[in-house]
């Protein structure tokens, strides 16, 4: 049987920093809507969102501190979802 790892206590300060980063990125994604980026605007918005979820996954959901296995599982699931979306969209505009 695999052993459960001790839960790491993340410092209050780290959480505050992450919170601050999340808020500032939210502000950023509102701000970029002011600039006309053409087709790129979707990509920029999604990239900011992806960065934010990465922070939530790693710190708030402890994937950074837990066993690597869990990070792999989450990454794998996201990858499958991304591929499914990409392949679905092959049906549009080509």
């Amino acid at each position, binding site marked *: *049987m695999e052993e459960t790892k001790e839960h790491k206590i993340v410092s209050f300060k780290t959480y505050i920093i992450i919170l601050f980063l999340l808020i500032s990125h939210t502000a950023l994604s509102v701000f970029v809507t002011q600039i006309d980026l053409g087709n790129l605007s979707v990509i920029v918005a999604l990239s900011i969102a992806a960065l934010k979820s990465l922070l939530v996954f790693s710190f708030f959901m402890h994937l950074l501190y837990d066993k690597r296995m869990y990070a792999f599982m989450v990454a794998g699931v996201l990858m499958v979802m991304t591929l499914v979306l990409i392949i679905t969209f092959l049906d549009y505009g080509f």
Partner: protein
Amino acid sequence: MISYEFIHKFSDVIFVGLFFVNNKLLKTMSNSSLPNYLEYKGKYKGIFAWIFSTDHKRIGLLYLYSIMGFFIVGAILGLLMKFELIAPGKTIMEAKSYNAVFTLHGITMIFLIVVPGIPAIFGNFFLPILIGAKDVFYPKLNLLSWWLYIIGAAVAISSQFMNGASPDTGWTFYAPYSFRTQSNVLPALIGAFILGFSSILTGLNFIVTMHRMRAPGMKWLKMPIFPWTLYGTAWIQLLATPVVGITLLMVVAERVLNIGFFDPALGGDPVLYQHLFWIYSHPAVYIMILPAMGIISEVIPTFARKAIFGYKAVVISTLLIAFVGYFVWGHHMFTAGMSGTSLFAFSFLTFLVAIPSAIKIFNWMATLYKGSILLRTPMYWAVSFLFVFMIGGLSGMVLGALSINVHLHDTAFVVSHFHFIVFGGVGFAFFAGIHYWFPKIYGKMYDAAWADTGWIVFFFGFLLLYTPMFYLGIAGMPRRYYDYVPEFHFANILSSFGAFIMIAGLAIIIINLFRSAKRGKKAESNPWAGKTLEWTIGSPPIVENFEEIPEIK
């Protein structure tokens, strides 16, 4: 509450302390002190001792009986269709009834039988034993899965008994028809939705069980193949099933609230429905077939008296099938009007996914090569599995070719393809499994002569039933029609005749197993000289499988 483990430990201490008996004696004595799971008396009595049991073995049997019950219903519906098709024109039912019958047949066979099928029955019963655990990680969740299964089935079947017509959409519920038809599709959709939860919970339970409950020394690469295939399956159950759940709810919303997801009149897209449906339903065919391959990978080495050839290749191909299987759903939509890029991509990926399946075939063949082969009932099923599975897989390649698909799509050829692979694959593997593990499950032996007779009758009936349908499809007979042109009469007679033979075989098999479970001779604990853990414990297994969790070297 005092657990069995505690009582056992306690008695060990007393025995050792008082008599200094040797380990072996101690083992035999404590062995007989624990009841087997069939005789164990728990909190409840009678039927409640089953339907409220959290013992993975009892839950496995609950699934076995419920699935077998539905299977008999589904098979009778299939037989009715073959009766109708024995002659052109109306034979025993109207066109509308035929539509209702193939819909119910499909929903029953897919959602109630082959999707839960092997994981729910043999996975529940044998997964914990094969990895050296006392139960699954969440026994109560396991029981909940069975209850959800029964509730989902009841809701789906209620569609037959309500006012109005029975559902007539086919098991695929294609839009726009599924939200326009006046028949009772709502209960069928909601039933299938609930069944999805049962499947997800089983998958989740198995993943956690394999990560957390393997016996000491049971490294990942020491696990037998059957657990590995359940592992691949469990991930598909967990990730793909929610997609179909949402899709079915979208159809419900479309019917009830006129949202416009799929209705072109409201700006929706019916092809989107097909995408969403097959994003689940193609991976779902791997939910069906992977555990079937797992059973075959247990049976063939045992009866060839050899370790499986290329263990790692089998494991990797299992995971590859589970992974690549997510990306080929579009091969069901080649004629739906997708873009050229999509057509190319899906055809390419479809050919790709056949490779790992072929790897497995070669591994099984190589396992047989120079083995000292023991031909017993499970082995007959396993080698005939290879035969029908290959026909099914190769006809899949034919369908995966873009140009040919235009000709064959929605014909009897497709019906033949998936029956060869689903019924031939999952069905044959199931029968291999039940004849392999029967002595372990019941502690009784079945009548081998009757079992072999059942197999040969079933096998010939099966081939006679489905082979003419390849021809019919190529000749242009569409699927899901109750009528056909006179030119197709002869092949249809052959096919219907095959159906009767196959059902006769099925009856022999089921009656033989039932009688043997009641009155069979007592079985040894390892009748086939198997090497995996289930054969190291008594038949039937004791309540928590192992006196002591085994140490794997």
